[in-house]
């Protein structure tokens, strides 16, 4: 392709997960002709949710994945709670998609290669960063100061929350800004009492209902996209035909499609970003057809890499040119370094006796949240900063609430 030809697309978005879906929506709604490139197969909202709504006795092997298959094909993905018979088609096959890591630094790379990516599988907890977070590097001297502040991003938070449908309670906390929320889900009676007791014993701490991307009360905007109210089934990762659970398939891609500015290609693995050293601009992407293994190129004025942290990094490192011998935009050599994972499944638990005469109905797809208190409302020298804390109640006489 020559740089003096006009590009085929105004923008190319690589990856159709949460960020790719958003990029496709925002750009197409502003009139740009967008190509969305997804490495996995095409799947269709509702039609491909074959495990949705199935009772355990309606699933082969009561929903379990055969041990031999799990060990052979999902030896990494099985670290994710959401992997089961009904959802395995939304996870990668680890036998086919292998990677290496230092033995002393294990890394569970949970992936979903299909249209919508991991937005099919995510846990939907959605929290704003606060001014404290944006200023943290400057305040304590660790890392490089962020070039933006809370006020710069707040309007975008508003926009995203309204469209996605984030439910949550208004708390007025400095460390956890309120947003444009749908009505909050309710705490059950045990949680409500735990909240009261925690907040009485620790006046500087709060326990609140989780803020999640499940529609508690649809707006006109949601309804127009075919999205309805949460039915409290708590099986969002099997696919939600009600569209109450936010995903690319339920929300951003339908919005992008209705502009008629979106072109989607699936089974198209982006190999690299092409670069023109004369104009000093990225000119498009080179892709490998997942089925035929043939190379193709697409040209675009703007390239959005939304292929996940590792996926986008891999593409950039593959994008070699005379100007960028170590990968595009990697003149500093920093690309691919300083990766840190979430701290997961560590924390505390407690049992609350009583309430034998009380119960709930509905399976709430959301838990509780304890906003950061360390070094916000309580000085604590053991921590440089602090943490927020997600939690889930469990009925010890039955199953998860």
């Amino acid at each position, binding site marked *: 392709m020559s740089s003096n030809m006009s590009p085929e697309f105004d923008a190319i978005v690589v990856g159709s997960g949460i960020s790719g879906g958003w990029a496709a929506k925002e750009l197409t709604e502003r009139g740009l002709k967008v190509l969305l490139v997804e490495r996995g197969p095409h799947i269709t909202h*509702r039609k491909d949710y074959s495990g949705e709504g199935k009772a*355990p006795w309606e699933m082969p092997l009561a929903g379990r994945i055969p*041990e031999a298959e799990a060990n052979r094909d999902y030896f990494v993905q099985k670290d994710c709670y959401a992997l089961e018979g009904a959802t395995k088609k939304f996870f990668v096959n680890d036998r086919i998609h292998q990677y290496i890591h230092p033995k002393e630094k294990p890394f569970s790379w949970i992936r979903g290669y299909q249209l919508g990516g991991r937005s099919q599988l995510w846990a939907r907890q959605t929290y704003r960063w606060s001014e404290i977070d944006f200023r943290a590097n400057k305040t304590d001297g660790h890392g490089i100061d962020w070039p933006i502040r809370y006020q710069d991003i707040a309007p975008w938070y508003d926009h995203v929350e309204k469209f996605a449908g984030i439910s949550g309670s208004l708390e007025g906390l400095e460390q956890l800004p309120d947003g444009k929320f749908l009505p909050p889900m309710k705490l059950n009676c045990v949680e409500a009492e735990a909240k009261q007791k925690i907040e009485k014993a620790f006046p500087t701490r709060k326990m609140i209902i989780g803020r999640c991307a499940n529609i508690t009360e649809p707006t006109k905007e949601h*309804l127009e996209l075919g999205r309805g109210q949460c039915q409290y089934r708590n099986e969002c990762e099997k696919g939600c*035909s009600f569209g109450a659970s936010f995903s690319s398939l339920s929300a951003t891609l339908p919005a992008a499609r209705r502009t008629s500015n979106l072109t989607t290609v699936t089974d198209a693995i982006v190999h690299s970003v092409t670069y023109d050293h004369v104009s000093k601009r990225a000119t498009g992407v080179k892709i490998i057809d997942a089925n035929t293994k043939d190379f193709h190129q697409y040209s675009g004025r703007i390239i959005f890499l939304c292929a996940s942290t590792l996926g986008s990094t891999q593409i950039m490192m593959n994008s070699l040119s005379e100007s960028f011998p170590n990968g595009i935009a990697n003149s500093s050599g920093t690309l691919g370094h300083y990766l840190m994972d979430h701290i997961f499944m560590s924390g505390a638990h407690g049992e609350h006796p009583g309430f034998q005469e009380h119960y709930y*109905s509905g399976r709430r797809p959301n838990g509780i949240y304890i906003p950061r208190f360390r070094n916000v409302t309580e000085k604590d020298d053991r921590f440089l900063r602090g943490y927020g804390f997600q939690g889930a109640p469990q009925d010890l006489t039955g199953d998860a609430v």
Partner: protein
Amino acid sequence: MTKSELSQILLCSASVDTVNLNMDKNIKLNSISLTRRKAIRNAVLLLGGSISVAQISPLISDVAAMSANYIPKFLGKHHFQMNKRLVDLIIPESDTPGALTANVHQFIDVMLDGWAAADTQLRFLDNFNNIDRRSMAMTGKTFADANRTQQIKLLEVLDKESFSDNGTDIFFGEFKALVVFGYYSSEEGASVELRYDRIPGGYRDCIPFSEVGRSWST
């Protein structure tokens, strides 16, 4: 809500689809003021009836294969009989369905055939044989041939061994877990002994337990 009720609702919504439902009317769902059934119907309606009955109907499941004429796929006749006795003793029939009514003995065979890896299959067979050996030593009879009192006595010993802090033989605990899993995954266990609600439609945070009457299975 039963499966057939749900199918009726979904069928009804599918026919309404042709009436060209106007999505702009901003149908507001309020499950508090509506009955749950109505709420689900409305929820389906606002999607233009786009959830088909086929989507909510069962996948080809193992349940269909389980019946009075079930032919074991994995366990031999002797082991299957023993498994049947074990399952019956672990969750007997009471005022609610027992594990045999829920075909859990067949479920165990289905799981050993389709779910268990080779080492798990071997472990089950070895331990079934071991239970027979223990029974022979205690009563002079195989487990299936021993009388009910003798069987229960042996299971109490196995249970104690399995769940003690320095348990040497944990197989019985593993077996029991599979029985309990099978039972509460069955229609009888999950929706008759316990309560199952396919589409709750809403969340009620604090209600008298008596309104539900039993624990939710999911």
